[in-house]
């Protein structure tokens, strides 16, 4: 499969990363006061915000006795991409992303604890540079923790692609916008690394079955790496002694 040239002869990627290297992740919990939980996450140049409201009483039509209704909304700010987006939300892509967010996060939330309730999760992409969905899941995971909602495990998402080096397959971790645009396969995985389960799997383009396993295992490795970063962020945040009650301005 002569894919596009994503690796240099030295084995470095277009943005200078090694194949198994994540982009720099910077995150912060509890950035806002209005929502019950919020988080900001930067993955390279992709910047996303997540806010969680709830659990609160669900509207009559949505309410179920089985568990909490998870309502997700993914929206991209009009200035998040180089070309101006006219509809920040409600278009096909955002709707699809909202659905995928819900699927991934419902897997992580202990939904049975809150029957007849609803949790609203809003994700806003401020700057998109590839992997906005992954960053959205990671940020939402942090926001849920900030809101104090019981989770089974961290929900982490990561993407992986495929490149060739000296005729050997070499999967690429955490695909950026340039690599995404260059074509080639992008495998997006949302998983609960702690339990080893996959909550969501999506692949674009074509990939030979023989190589699927290596790409998937690299994406899973990425999820595990991200979990460590998120966990550290949560611990640092709590170590600061920062609880919501302290800053409530009455």
């Amino acid at each position, binding site marked *: 499969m002569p894919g596009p040239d994503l690796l240099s002869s030295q084995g470095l990627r277009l943005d200078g990363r090694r194949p198994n290297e994540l982009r720099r992740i910077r995150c912060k919990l509890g950035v806002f006061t*209005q929502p019950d939980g919020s988080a900001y996450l930067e993955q390279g*140049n992709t910047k996303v915000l997540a806010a969680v409201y709830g659990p609160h009483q669900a509207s009559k039509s949505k309410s179920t006795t089985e568990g909490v209704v998870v309502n997700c909304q993914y929206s991209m700010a009009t*200035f998040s991409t180089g070309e101006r987006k006219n509809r920040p939300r409600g278009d096909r892509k955002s709707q699809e992303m909202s659905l995928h967010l819900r699927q991934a996060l419902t897997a992580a939330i202990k939904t049975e604890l809150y029957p007849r309730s609803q949790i609203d999760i809003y994700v806003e992409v*401020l700057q998109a540079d590839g992997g906005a969905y992954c960053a959205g899941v990671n940020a939402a995971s942090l926001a849920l923790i900030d809101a104090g909602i019981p989770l089974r495990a961290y929900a982490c998402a990561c993407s992986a692609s495929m490149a060739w080096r000296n005729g050997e397959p070499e999967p690429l971790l955490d695909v950026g916008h340039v690599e995404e645009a260059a074509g080639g396969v992008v495998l997006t995985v949302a998983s609960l690394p702690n339990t080893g389960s996959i909550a969501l799997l999506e692949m674009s383009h074509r990939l030979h079955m023989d190589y699927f396993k290596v790409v998937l295992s690299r994406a899973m490795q990425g999820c595990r790496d991200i979990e460590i970063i998120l966990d550290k962020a949560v611990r640092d945040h709590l170590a600061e002694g920062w609880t919501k009650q302290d800053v409530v*301005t009455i």
Partner: protein
Amino acid sequence: MAEIYKLIHPLKYFTDYISREVRPDGRKFDEQRNIKLNVNSLKTAEASAVVKCGNTTVVCGIQLELATPKAEEPDLGYLVTNLELPALCSPKYRPGPPSDHAQVTNYLVSDIITNSKCINLKDLCIVPDKLAWVLYCDIVCLDNDGSLVDACIIALMASLKTLCLPSVTYDNDTEDIKVNADIRTPLKVHGLPVATSFAVYKLPDRNILLTDPSAYEEEMCGGIGANFIVCSNEGLLCGTQKFGGSNLLSDSQEESLKISRDRTNVVKKVIETSIKNDNEFVS
């Protein structure tokens, strides 16, 4: 204890504070919240700014497009401002189409910018009747904790002040457009409109003017959109409104004009410092 008192007697709780000449968050009546500003924080937009007034957080991003001017105004460009209040910024908003409040605030912001004449639309025209810039100024509110219009105007003005337009050559015969992104000229901005919000609270004997109210104070003083907003550009008023809520007395009006004049100087300093720091960071 205070939390419970606030829930049971919301009005009395608030009045207790006000009658002791202090606001629930510890500010004096005429004291405004801290302003934090960061320019050029987004790389996908041509110009951008993030501003925090207390907890109110607003992001503004400007993107450029080319278009043909309107036939009736062939030498004017376009300045389009758009304010978004997504559901994530406050528990009061529901997801869905923009609420009435969002639309009213949106109009308010674009009216202020148009009335202040801080941007001459003729500067945005490249070739009359053929080609002009469209400035899409998109403002997104990330956390709404009151005095939204003030924060929007600061974010918008800080972005406009950092905006540089690429040079464009237009061939009249072939209608060929060449954009050179390397040669840029800063956009001319005339003056600096600054908005100041006040909430009017009615005590039995007098009316109190609260500068830069938080969402909680706005709610106690008449709810959404009842703020008294004064906006001036270099001493010229360019948008003053008071819809609903408690009545305004003429002497408090004078006081408010004085406060807004002081605030203009503060905002000006904030924007200048922020742009200077950004330039130093780049070079």
